[in-house]
């Protein structure tokens, strides 16, 4: 109950915020942080709960973005249709990735997911209708009622998506499904022999995670008012989506949230104050520090601190 009140509170608060005269730049930067929350949370459903490390996040984000573009170009569908279609397509892609896990486990699964990025990127580069290798310039719709501007609307939509992603992650964590995922992460053979239908669970986790990753990528064409394959399928997405849950903590839904807010905020600040190149370095340094000093992330540190102060 409390969780849902907080969620509703955030959505209403964000709605109030986008109606206020705050500078547009705030929403532009805030969008990136919110998108990071969705990406990290979605990644963690498969990577953290089930232990299948997906390096193919850019494939899903890019697929989501281009699926949205396809809706925009072909039927000029509104944003909500773009997002839903993106989630559908990348959910299907997630399902296919899940099938890979039948044969490949551990690092081999991860390598296969990297290949997926290049497959999807090559597909788009050769698809003239979607702009091919050069990309497409887009004009944002001017009308965004009841919002005062399209970027403000995108910000609010991203708030809703982040809340939905967190609610799903939280629900899965404490559910029957989540217990099965934890069991298969710890030992797939033992889980199977304890009655856990591991393949079905992996397919479900891959599909949900993929759909959310794609949905997070869907607003990108409109946000940038431009789309091209190289930045849409940028491997930096893979590194961030993996670094944030690791830094925040992978065992609890709140970990990716904390990691995403921390990392994405620092990145935004560094981009503005120092350089846009240096922000990638921040991810690397923090990742190394956390992997060595706090492998269970901030959530792990908090638990340790709580246990020792008892």
């Amino acid at each position, binding site marked *: 109950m409390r969780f849902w009140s907080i969620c509703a509170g955030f959505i209403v608060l964000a709605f109030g915020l986008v109606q206020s005269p705050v500078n547009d730049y705030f929403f532009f930067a805030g969008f990136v942080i919110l998108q990071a929350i969705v990406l990290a949370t979605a990644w963690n459903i498969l990577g953290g709960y089930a232990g299948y490390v997906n390096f193919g996040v850019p494939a899903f984000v890019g697929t989501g973005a281009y699926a949205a573009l396809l809706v925009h170009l072909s039927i000029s569908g509104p944003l909500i249709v773009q997002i839903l279609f993106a989630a559908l397509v990348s959910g299907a892609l997630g399902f296919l990735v899940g099938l890979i896990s039948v044969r490949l486990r551990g690092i081999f699964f991860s390598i296969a997911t990297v290949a997926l990025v290049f497959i999807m990127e090559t597909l788009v580069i050769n698809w003239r209708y979607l702009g091919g290798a050069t990309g497409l310039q887009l004009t944002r719709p001017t009308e965004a009622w009841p919002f005062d501007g399209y970027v403000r609307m995108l910000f609010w939509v991203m708030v809703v998506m982040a809340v939905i992603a967190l609610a799903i992650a939280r629900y899965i964590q404490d559910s029957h499904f989540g217990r099965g995922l934890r069991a298969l*992460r710890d030992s797939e053979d033992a889980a199977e022999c304890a009655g856990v239908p591991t393949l079905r669970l992996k397919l479900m986790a891959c599909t949900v995670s993929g759909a959310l990753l794609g949905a997070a990528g869907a607003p990108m064409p409109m946000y940038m008012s431009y789309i091209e394959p190289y930045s849409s399928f940028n491997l930096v997405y893979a590194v961030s989506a993996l670094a944030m849950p690791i830094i925040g903590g992978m065992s609890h839904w709140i970990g990716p949230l904390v990691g995403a807010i921390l990392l994405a905020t620092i990145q935004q600040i560094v981009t503005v104050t120092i350089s846009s190149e240096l922000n990638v370095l921040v991810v690397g340094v923090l990742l190394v520090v956390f992997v060595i000093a706090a492998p269970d992330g901030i959530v792990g540190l908090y638990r340790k601190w709580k246990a020792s102060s008892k």
Partner: protein
Amino acid sequence: MESILEVSKVSKHFGGFTALSGVDLRVAQGERLGLIGPNGSGKTTLINCISGSLLNDEGEISFKGKAISKLPAHRRTCLGIARSFQIPRPFTSMSMIENLMVPLSYVCGITGDQAEQKAMEILSGMGLAAKARTATNQLSQVELRKMELARAMAAQPALLISDEAMAGLSGSEIDEVLEILLDMNSKGITIIMIEHIMQAVMAFSQRVVCLDAGQIICEGTPEHVVADPYVQRAYLGD
């Protein structure tokens, strides 16, 4: 007696290596069967094929009269085949009781307080109640072995396969585990026990089957099998 498990002409190859060739085995309802054989003789491969961790290449396995050789492991668990692993494979992120909750919720559909109660019942029966909330990485070797059996029991099996549950344990610990297995059997559970420790095999089994190089070379009463010249040769060489 009616047989609960029938393995007929089961073969399993790994590339060019034949791990099992034409194994025939029948296990009667409520029986205590000892499965012995030298290292690499195919014992674990056989039970992997029975439990579904591996799929057999040839032959047929049926359980309670139902053909199961194509079923995935979790379906077989739900039908009533449970196993423990030679090297304990606890769910490391969970406490001991949570480990038991996995089969309880996935096999028996019991959750919440009811599952907790049932799990405590099983753990108490094995003298593990005090460690129920302990993280699995804090457990001793014997506790892990017992937990493997407890988790298998939580699936409420009709057939339990115990894969070297006693390897590396001390004399008194072996007796403890043996007692647990005998207790399970007295509740009507059929048990296949893979073991190297002959003292345990002799004390436990009603019938012993000896595998060597993927084939059954001898079966009968424990005394008969131990005295068999083929078995002695398989273990000791010529």
